[in-house]
């Protein structure tokens, strides 16, 4: 997978060339809009679009699952016919659905096409409860498949032998030991860390593998989606809240060892701090991964902004360099997220020495 970054970059470039030329063709004014191109690539979508070959678009059709007051609506995303301007109306279960900027809208009763107000917001349609298997969700499932291919296999090794595993299993074991000895034990303490190992290991490998898969050409930007990182941060927060010791809560609401007025002043600050910790986690992961994608896309976008193939001599090596850097960032962000989660959980479960 990592064997040939050159090949990867070549594919990446090819994908963008096709993707962008598509955008070109669709635009009457021959202006290339880099913002649209980048946003299109880092945002979620109902289709998993790989590339266009001439007129045909190579993409994976994914299920759209919507729920309105009148019931469930399910259909495959191919029914949108790659439209995301709200022009194609899909009729299903007596309701009309359009895809406007990769968000499904259900038209109000009696409406047959999408209308906009002066701010370009749809005015005759509502956003339903949207549980669609989008590109990002499908990518999450892909990570799950990879995780289930890798780790139960490693677990099986220990049933057979007591010796150190070889090859890929050995590399994975090293990482498991790394999470245990460098993250969980020092941050949570050797008494309580075992309880949190399943969460920390899952989060670490989930983020790392998702990050790596996200670097593949045509892949989704999962860990760079705020919704995903919110969910991850929320888990850490829940673990902090449900495992907080008496001491932890006391230090938040009624700080011992300081005068009463200061205690009153500290309580709201500490309370906000408790929520800010996981929020920082979620923003850090989201911003880092999204930034990486934006940089690579911008460098390649330069070729089209300047309308010169010669620029690729500069921007492709730069994009390659950033891509390799992103391999490091993929690991680093998984490590930092897990590390800080362990640190925050460690703070919550810590037994204080009584002063």
């Amino acid at each position, binding site marked *: 997978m990592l064997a040939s970054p050159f090949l990867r970059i070549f594919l990446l470039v090819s994908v963008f060339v096709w993707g962008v030329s598509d955008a070109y063709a669709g635009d009457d004014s021959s202006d290339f809009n880099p913002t649209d191109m980048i946003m299109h690539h880092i945002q*979620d979508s109902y289709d998993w679009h790989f590339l266009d070959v001439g007129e045909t678009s190579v993409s994976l059709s994914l299920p759209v699952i919507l729920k309105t007051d009148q019931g469930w609506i399910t259909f495959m995303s191919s029914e949108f016919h790659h439209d995301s301007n709200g022009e194609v109306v899909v009729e299903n279960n007596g309701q009309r659905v359009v895809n406007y900027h990769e968000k499904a809208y259900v038209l109000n009763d009696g409406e047959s096409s999408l209308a906009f107000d002066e701010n370009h917001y749809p005015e005759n349609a509502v956003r339903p409860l949207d*549980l*669609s298997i989008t590109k990002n*969700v499908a990518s999450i499932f892909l990570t799950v498949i990879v995780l289930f291919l890798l780790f139960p296999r490693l*677990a099986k090794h*220990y049933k057979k032998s*007591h010796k150190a595993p070889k090859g890929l299993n050995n590399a994975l074991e090293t990482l498991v030991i790394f999470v245990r000895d460098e993250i969980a034990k020092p941050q949570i303490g050797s008494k309580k860390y075992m309880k949190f190992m*399943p969460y920390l290991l899952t989060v670490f490998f989930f983020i790392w593998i998702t990050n790596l898969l996200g670097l593949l050409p045509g892949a989704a930007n999962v860990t760079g989606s705020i919704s995903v990182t919110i969910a*991850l941060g929320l888990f850490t927060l829940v673990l902090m809240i449900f495992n907080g010791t008496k001491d932890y809560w006391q230090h938040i609401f009624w700080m011992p060892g300081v005068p009463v007025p200061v205690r009153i002043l500290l309580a709201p600050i500490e309370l906000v701090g408790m929520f800010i910790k996981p929020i920082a986690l979620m923003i850090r992961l989201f911003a880092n991964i*999204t930034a990486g994608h934006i940089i690579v896309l911008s460098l390649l976008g330069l070729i089209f902004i300047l309308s010169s193939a010669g620029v690729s001599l500069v921007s492709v090596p730069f994009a390659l360099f950033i891509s390799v850097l992103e391999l490091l960032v993929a690991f680093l962000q998984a490590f930092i997220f897990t590390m800080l989660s362990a640190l925050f959980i460690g703070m919550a479960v810590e037994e204080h020495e009584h002063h």
Partner: protein
Amino acid sequence: MELIKPEFGLFFWQVVVLVILVFLLGKFAWKPILQGIKEREDSINDSINAAEDAKKELMHLQEKNQDMLNEARIERDQMLKEAQAAKKRMLEEANTQATQKAAQIVAKAQEAIEADKKAALVEIKSEVASLSIDIAEKILGQNLKDDKAQRQLVEQMLKDVKLN
């Protein structure tokens, strides 16, 4: 702004997936993996401890051996020394004994020589006496025959005495 607007669907699926992952991987992966790693680490630690104990035992044995060797060496040295001393003593004893014996033999020999000498002297004395008597007899026997002959006879006899 679109970028930082959370989508409920994605959030929902992420939560569902993460709960399932933590549960399933926890049961079928993390638990056996961590257990396996711990078992191996424990067995490695045990083996190392056993090896260290064995090493200590070996060192102990080696020390013991060395001590025994040293003792044996000291004993040997002592025995050698003693033997050498005994040899020296015996040699000295033999020497003194030999000297004494030699002295005794010499003394005895001298005594014998002395005794022989005495006996010889006594014999010579008696011989001389008898010779004197013979000479006197012969002188007296051929008395007065010839002065010249007498002288000759005496000389002859004296010569004989000398030859004795």
